[in-house]
């Protein structure tokens, strides 16, 4: 299945349009999605530090999705690098 992921903060530098689309096997976990995104960025956005995806969280508009969660179908996700508000 195709998963669309919106990019924020330093990860915006990875794509001028502000999102990436990944082909993800059905039933994948967020931990597996994290590996797929890290591999994708290593090829398509080598300027992004390799550790940044490891330190980032995945989320829907409602909540943070931790590593053990299944990748939800049919909704856009967001990948959130370490936060620095205030």
């Amino acid at each position: 299945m195709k998963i669309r992921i919106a990019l924020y903060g330093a990860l915006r530098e990875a794509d001028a349009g502000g999102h990436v689309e990944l082909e993800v096997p059905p039933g994948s976990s967020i931990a597996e999605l994290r590996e797929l995104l890290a591999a994708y960025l290593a090829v398509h956005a080598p300027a992004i530090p390799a550790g940044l995806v490891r330190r980032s969280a995945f989320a829907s508009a409602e909540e943070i999705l931790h590593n053990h969660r299944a990748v939800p179908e049919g909704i856009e996700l967001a990948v959130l690098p370490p936060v620095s508000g205030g």
Partner: protein
Amino acid sequence: MDGLHVAVVERRVATLDVAAALDFVGDPRFGGIASFIGRVRDHNVGRAVTGISYDLFEPLALRVFRAIGERAQAEVGAPLKLWIAHAKGRLAIGDLAVVIAAGTPHRDEAFRACRLAIEAVKHEAPIWKQEHYVDGDSAWSEGCSLCEEQREAERHEHAGHAHGH
């Protein structure tokens, strides 16, 4: 929670409104109001800063602000009105980045609610700061990881350092 106002304000549209915040948390029952105002300063870690851009994942940021309000309410254990507003977009030196205001019957509760809210906004809300420097360069700030496993790993790392010294 009643008496909670949360907002993300695009800088091009408006500035954060401190008077409105203080007005909102005022109440005949309340003798104490504490506020925190974060402004854009002209330097960071020895570099001259000309401005800041804030990026937010807005729907989740507003949910996190509301959850922070609920937690502050539970924590202070007293009647509370709380205002949490954060700016978005390109800000100049001196612009308001964040405004927190807490109204409660007494000062201790107001200070505690205000402190809890600003610390939680800084560490938990999906907000990113990009600094712009005099030389034209820009950089995203380091920040706190929202990834549970990573937070845990970093906590152990810090604990290790603490023991090491």
